């Protein structure tokens, strides 16, 4: 028996409503006990001093673009999973926009094998809804499901064909797998590079109108209600989308939704005004919207209209992001910053507590994806993130584990840093910069929240 004891930390587990100082024992890769008695500790025991830190179930990302196979210039499975554990994620769902896309059992298997060889975060696979992500004909959802696909999505492409979405929602009820739609109406956002509004008008840049997202969400939730299929919409970024979700959720329609931390970053100044720099680092998706949309989105994280936060990791090679705003693709490297952005914007400002943050970034996404994660109950996987909540650090993309260095946050100061990431009881990431923290006294002054 091999054991790992995480001592002295503030244990935050929404699945058990626990938020208190406690020890966590993991034995043979599985959670064995909270506050274990000394006599029950195994002989072969590694101890981690987590005083002053948050100890939570590892984060779960609902869509990480790993880009391998076919787009290795953007990201590889090996670099993507390294970035995941550096960002506190212990389970990620690999998006289907590889080349070829993940629309066959063989591609699912390829990703699973490469991820197993990389041996960092757990990688679950999202299969395509449509063959070749063509948006018209259904992929072999049954075979993909048997091969291990846990959800289906054509993201980052939306599903503009309503008949296809309706059929797929119906069909997926047989496998109890969810469909993820990134809501959009392509003909309304054709050629758009930024949020459509006063700023896009002044800059002469093509806009992405909010109606394109609003209309798709309205259709999506109606089809979910009509079919009884499992539907998740996200990431969403508009007031109209939130309004629609609030209404149907109050009627009890079983639909879930997610948002990205970069769309909540009002204090960090990530709004459509950022595009005034004409820098493609700010060309991200969903686009940086105007203040009132951001404020509404922040409120919806608090009230639960938004169930989950997702990283929004869309890595694209440097040479692609160096071009002008029309030619450069949407994208950013965000696995290693999304948790800190959420802490800085939501927890540090007092908008939500730690339980809610961990629920939105771990417990809820695990439930939506239907994967065994997001909990530290006895017998659950020993997947843990240890966070230094008060640590202030400056984003330096040259230190990213991700192959992609493009981020709208370069040089920005954030609060909260991942100290240790543990998957199946094994330490997969340790922050080299935080070693001094481990020796700090127990009486760490309470942070301002």
């Amino acid at each position, binding site marked *: 028996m091999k054991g790992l004891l995480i001592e002295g930390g503030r244990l935050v587990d929404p699945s058990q409503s626990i938020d208190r100082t406690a020890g966590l024992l993991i034995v043979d890769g599985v959670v064995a006990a909270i506050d274990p008695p000394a006599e029950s500790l195994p002989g072969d025991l590694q101890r981690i001093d987590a005083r002053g830190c948050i100890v939570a179930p590892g984060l779960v990302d609902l869509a990480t673009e790993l880009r391998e196979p076919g787009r290795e210039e953007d990201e590889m499975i090996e670099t993507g999973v390294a970035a995941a554990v550096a960002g506190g994620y212990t389970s990620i769902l690999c998006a289907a926009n590889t080349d070829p896309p993940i629309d066959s059992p063989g591609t699912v298997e390829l990703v699973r094998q490469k991820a197993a060889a990389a041996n960092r975060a757990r990688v679950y696979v999202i299969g395509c809804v449509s063959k070749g992500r063509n948006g018209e004909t259904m992929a072999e959802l049954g075979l993909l499901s048997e091969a291990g696909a846990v959800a289906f999505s054509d993201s980052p492409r939306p599903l503009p064909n309503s008949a296809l979405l309706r059929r797929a929602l119906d069909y997926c009820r047989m496998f109890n797998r969810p469909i993820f739609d990134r809501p959009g109406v392509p003909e309304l956002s054709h050629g758009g590079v930024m949020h459509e509004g006063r700023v896009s008008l*002044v800059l002469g840049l093509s806009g992405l109108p909010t109606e394109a997202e609003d209309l798709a969400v309205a259709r999506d939730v109606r089809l979910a209600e009509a079919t009884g299929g499992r539907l998740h919409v996200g990431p969403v970024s508009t007031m109209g989308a939130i309004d629609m979700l609030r209404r149907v959720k109050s009627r009890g329609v079983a639909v879930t939704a997610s948002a990205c931390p970069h769309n909540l970053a009002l204090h960090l100044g990530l709004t459509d005004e950022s595009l005034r720099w004409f820098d493609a680092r700010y060309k991200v998706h969903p686009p940086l919207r105007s203040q009132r949309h951001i404020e509404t989105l922040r409120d919806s994280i608090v009230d639960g209209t938004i169930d989950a936060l997702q990283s929004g990791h869309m890595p694209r090679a440097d040479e692609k992001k160096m071009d002008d705003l029309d030619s450069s693709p949407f994208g950013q490297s965000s696995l290693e910053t999304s948790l800190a952005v959420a802490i800085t914007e939501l927890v540090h400002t007092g908008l939500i507590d730690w339980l809610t943050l961990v629920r939105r970034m771990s417990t809820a996404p695990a439930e939506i994806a239907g994967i065994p994660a997001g909990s530290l109950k006895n017998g659950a996987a020993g997947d843990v993130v240890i966070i230094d909540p008060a640590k202030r650090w400056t984003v330096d993309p040259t230190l990213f584990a991700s192959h992609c260095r493009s981020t709208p946050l370069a040089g920005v100061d954030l609060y909260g840093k991942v100290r240790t990431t543990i998957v199946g009881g094994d330490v997969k990431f340790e922050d080299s910069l935080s070693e001094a923290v481990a020796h700090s006294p127990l009486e760490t002054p309470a942070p301002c929240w």
Partner: protein
Amino acid sequence: MFDPFIVSGFSILAQVRTSVNNDAIVSATPSSPAVTAAPPAVAWERRHLLELESLSAEEIRTLLDLSLWMKRATDGCRKKMPLLVGKTCANLFFENSTRTRNSFSLAAKRLGADTVEFSSSGSSVAKGETFVDTAKTIEAMGVDWVVTRHRTPGTPHLLARELGCSVLNAGDGPHEHPTQGLLDMLTILEHRGQIEGLTVALVGDIEHSRTARSNLWGLRKLGARVIVCGPATLVSRRWTELGVEVAHDLDAILPECDVLNLLRIQFERQSTPPFPSIHEYALRYAMNGRRMRVARKDILIMAPGPINRGVEITPEVADGPQSVILDQVTNGIAVRMAALWLLAQGAEQGRGR
């Protein structure tokens, strides 16, 4: 304190209203091929001319004052004046242009500078090079200004960050075309003596017009009333948030206008037609003889060109007595001479922005 209206003892208004003041300048070199007068000393710090939105009213007045001086000193932009000998101006046009490119070339040559021409067709861009790399290559050949035109907004800003030399925006997609805005204002100034208090209507494809986006900032900063007029699909309601009036009925606003600036419909920037037919557009928005009779007698008719006769303007208006379209072309050279010279001063001061 720098007085916006008086640049080293001469003022726009005095010069335009009475041409007495500048007789000395012009008559000093009546027959020589090259003029040797020195421009007035000015306060100028910028190294780049990217947009009018971020310029102050004072800076715009300085540019206009100096443009007028350049025009007078070169006998209507026809004579050489060796103010910038030994310097080199590169034209980097990633989008087609005849008038703007030639205007910048002539302006540089009038001031004694050398010019390098670059166009994207058949060049390294066609071989896959990014436009930033192309610009850096041209800069490494030793140029002092890069004049750039590109289909994407913000590309001059990108070059200004990447290059060490001065960057002049000669049109970045639908965003801005600052020298066009300045030459339009100079033309109004010459004919009216002032901009403050005038009502100027920009008519046509506002959505895709860099001319509109430069004009409206410049005109507003100098105190004009600006109306943007065109089909609702090309004139957003949001323009009112920027201190501009929005109109869709040309006939309704026409009697109030001192100046009409007729903008071309930019079909090449539209994925789907913004109105049912050119026929319908022309009936609603073309400036023709009938509308001229409704307009003020002294109305100024301007167009940035190229003009589409029969669409936004009919021949009798384009070639009529109120048209100042060809004055605009001449003034373009004056404005570009002033811009090149000012940016050279900004670069020399070494604290350029």
